[in-house]
Structure formats: C-alpha cells, structure tokens
C-alpha cells in the first residue's frame, strides 16, 4: 500500500485516526482544547460520543485517559508536544507505573509551531518520555509514515508516546512501500562509508546531504529510526560495523534524544566515531518551520560538514 496522498503530518494524523476509529469502537480521543489545531477534531465530527475535550488541563487529561484505559477503553490523548510535557509526572506516575494502554499522540513538536516561538517548540520531549519505564517512543518521518504507523501504534497494547510535527512534511518515505513495525529501523538509502541516522522531517536534509556526499565519492547510508524506544539495535550495529562512522540528526535537543539513544546502542555493541546534529538552545519565532530549520543549521551543508569531520 503506497502512502503519501496527504502532505501535512497533522492532516494525516487526523484522517488516519478516524479510519482506525471506524474499526475499533473502544478508541476514545481526548484533547486539552487543541482538537482543531491537532486535527483530533476530525474524530469528533465522526464519533462525537467518543471524543472529549477536557479543557486546558493537561494533567487532568492524562489521568482521565488513564482511568478510561483502566476499564478497557483505548484512549488517545492528543495535545501539542510542549503541553503534554506539562503532565510528565502524571504520565510517569500513573500511566507508566500502572503500564496502562494509553496513547499520547502529540503534534507541533520540534520547530513546527514556528510562529508561536520558543514557548511552543518542544525540543526536549523525546528525552523525557524515553526515560519512563514501560513507555514506547515513536517518531514518524513524514505524513506517509503517519498513515503507515498510526494503525500499528494504536493496536499495540501499552503506553506509547507518538511524536509528530504540524504541516511541514517533505517526501521522505512517501515513495516507499513497507509495513511499519515497532522496534524496527528502515533503510532510506544504502551506503558503505558513512551512516546518517535520525528521526522526523530532518531526514529529508539527511537524504539531500547523502546525495552531496555521493558526488564527493562517499557512499552514504541514511537510516530512518522512527522507533526510538524500543530501538532497532541490530540495524544500528550492522551499519556501525559496515560504515564505521555515524552522524545523527534530530529536530530535538542532542541531550538524551534520538542521537543519544543510538549512541547508547553503538557504545554497547560496536563503538564507532559519531557526530550529533540537534538543538542546543531554545527556538524563536519564524514564518515557517523551514526557516527555523535553516536558521538553526538543520540543512544538508551541516550534515556534510559533520560527515567530513569523520571521513578525513
């Protein structure tokens, strides 16, 4: 099944969620007053009895979802990534500790809420969520990846943090045809001299960088690691051994995020030199996510530069 007819990540999320809701009547969508912005609202239009807006109260939303799951419902709590973090302790102490079947689906992660500025740009959430025992963390690469992975996520038993951006969705996986599995990494491009690994929309820049590196005679693999936890240790080790050097890229802080998760595997199984591309500061306002990615250096040139540091 070829994905990719939708070009916005949140649109893909909202529409796919409705499709899943048709098949499973236990799915309940909850939001903290961002149903419209996240496109969770589409669920209300189709299934008004299975949709709750709890108001601007994230902590309550998380434990409300926990309670629903305790009696066998399948709640999907939908929020901006930034504001889901506000309920981190609730997520940890109720959902994590009781290992409840709650899905935390967030949009507007990274720089994707470009206009609202640093207060709305979640660059720390992957780090926070992957530290919680029982919690799985998934980051689809683009809208097509959302269509492909969301049904699998919703049908998986147990808590999952599912992280999406807003609209920006360059074509990373839309021409690919594969079944999504939790815990698996996917080869976007094979290569022998260097591996670029990461998650999210910045993989597009990684692919462009790989083209540039090929022109320089450097055979470059690009690996999509949508499943941050559990992570595909075998594929990461295989490419560490095969290429001997790794650059990671993520629209997230370099402290504890995707790059760190990959580094933990590499150090344990086959240590190789690595470089990390990610954020180290708060963001700022801009007219588009792309402007911010350019401003903060999430561009092919940065990837090439980091790669050459390892190649020389």
């Amino acid at each position, binding site marked *: 099944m070829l994905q990719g007819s939708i070009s916005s990540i949140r649109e893909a999320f909202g529409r796919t969620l409705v499709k899943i809701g048709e098949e499973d009547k236990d799915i309940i969508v909850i939001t903290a007053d961002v149903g419209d912005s996240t496109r969770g609202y589409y669920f209300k239009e189709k299934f008004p009895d299975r949709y709750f807006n709890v108001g601007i109260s994230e902590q309550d939303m998380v434990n409300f979802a926990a*309670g629903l799951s305790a*009696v066998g419902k399948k709640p999907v709590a939908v929020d901006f990534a930034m504001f889901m973090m506000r309920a981190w302790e609730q997520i940890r102490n109720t959902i994590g500790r009781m290992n409840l079947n709650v899905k935390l689906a967030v949009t507007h992660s990274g720089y994707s809420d470009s206009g609202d500025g640093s207060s709305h740009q979640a660059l720390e959430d992957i780090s926070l969520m992957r530290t919680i025992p029982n919690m799985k963390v998934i980051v689809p690469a683009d809208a097509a990846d959302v269509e492909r992975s969301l049904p699998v996520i919703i049908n998986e038993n147990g808590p999952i943090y599912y992280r999406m951006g807003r609209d920006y969705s360059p074509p990373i996986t839309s021409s690919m045809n594969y079944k999504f599995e939790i815990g698996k990494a996917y080869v976007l491009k094979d290569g022998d001299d260097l591996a670029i690994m990461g998650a999210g929309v910045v993989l597009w820049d990684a692919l462009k960088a790989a083209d540039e590196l090929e022109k320089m005679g450097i055979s470059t693999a690009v690996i999509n690691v949508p499943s941050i936890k559990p992570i595909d240790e075998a594929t990461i080790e295989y490419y560490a051994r095969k290429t001997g050097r790794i650059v990671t890229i993520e629209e997230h802080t370099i402290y504890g995020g995707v790059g760190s998760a990959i580094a933990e595997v590499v150090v344990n199984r086959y240590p190789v030199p690595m470089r990390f591309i990610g954020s180290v500061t708060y963001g700022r306002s801009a007219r588009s996510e792309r402007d911010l990615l350019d401003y903060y250096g999430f561009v092919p040139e940065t990837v090439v530069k980091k790669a050459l540091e390892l190649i020389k």
Partner: protein
Amino acid sequence: MGERDGIPISINELNKLRQIADKARKNVIKMQFYDHSVHVGSSLSSIEILTTLVFRYIRDSSEKVNKDWLILSKGHAAPALYAVLAEKGLIKEDELWKIQSIEGLLQGHPEVFIPGVDMSTGSLGQGLSFGIGVATGIKMSGGNGRVFVIMGDGEQDEGEVWEAMTHAVARKLDNLIAFIEINGFQLDDSVSEVKPKDFLQDVWKAVGWRTFSCDGHDIKSIVDAIEEALKSKKPAVIFAKTVRGKGFPPIENSKRQRATPDVTRQYLVDS
C-alpha cells in the same frame, strides 16, 4: 445500586464496623514498630472512612465496569488502607508487619499489584482525574460500577484537583463520590497556615457538585452522608471532618506523623 444502599445501618453492623476500625487503628500504630517512617497520623484520620467503604459499600466483580472502585488519592494513608484490607481478608495480617521492607508486598504508597488497590497513587492530586476516567468509561459501557475517591485537604493545593473538579461536572458523573478529609494539617504546617481553605466547600458547590458533610470518625455520620451522596444526580463530594492521628494521643491533632517506639509501645500496652 449496591445491595446495602438505602438500608439503614443497624446497631449490630455499626458495632461490627467500629470493632474493625479499632483493630485497623491499632494495627496502623503497630506498623510503625516495624517501619518507623510510615505515615501514621494521616492514616489514622482515614480509618473509619476506609472501613465504611470497604465493608459496607465497595462491591467486587470480575468485570471492571461492574465493580466499585476505591481510589486512595492521598496515597500516604496507605497503611490505613492495608490495615482495613487485612481485616477484609484481602491481605494477610503478617504482611502488615513487612510494610516497606524489600521482601514485603506492601509499598509505602499504594500499588495496583497489591490486592484491593485500584490505582497506584502517591503523588497528590492525581486520583480524582483517574476516577473521572473510570466513572466515564463505566457509563460509556453501560456498567453499574461506582467510583469512590479519597483526598486530603492539603491535597487541594494541587492544580490538577481544580482541573478535575470542573471536569467531573462537565461529564455529569452521578457514579462518582469524592471524599475530602479535613484533618487540618499538611506536611510542613497546618492547612490554615499554608493556604486557608475555609472556602473549599463553597467552591465545590459553586462549580456544580452536590456537597455533603460528615464526621469522618463517626461511622453513622459517614453512612448517612454516603446514602445522600448516592442519591445525587451530579458528582457528589463529602467533606469529612477528621483528626490527624485520631485515637493515638501522642500525635493526635498535630502535624506529627508518628511517635517514638517507646511512646508507641507504652500506648499499646496501656490500651
């Protein structure tokens, strides 16, 4: 409706519940011999409410939506819950003396792997939101389960309580009964010194709850309040006046959670 709902409590039952509460009270005090760090004061203020709920109202069922749920949001009163559950036969009495020990079952705060515990708690302010989720899920499924949530007055400082208080009304949950224990103390000081809460009952009422009051150590008073609350077509909250450390004079009505082992021993010998 539960099978006891609406049936006036008899003198015999009242005496039986009092005996159970007395035994649980003594066992909580005894538990601090085995682990001095348990929260005795907060536990002793909850004994009669827990006894009444567990022995008169909570109905069990293998179906999650047809059972009653007991959520101890003020999770630091776990010793009281364990002592009452032991009287009910859900926990072996020997386990009480192993509370908080590495090989024991009973954790410092409630965990769902302990028989009779419906929610893992310990972090204040979270129980009511969870209870709203359970009560909503029960109604959506057409179940007959009810949800009882026990909170403290200090716990009302938490913002999530406000979030949940206003939420329950929006859901029109008539299968949810909250208790707020007014024992007047929190960790550092008296509640009135930290953040006065004389207005609390008015706030809950203004938001849309049916509010009731009771003496949280008088089982007849607790039963009367619950009976009225069960008739409510809106979420109901029972403000239960309690005494921290009730029945244990060395710490009674103070912010102190526990007495020294010698003082405790003397008390148990004398009583």
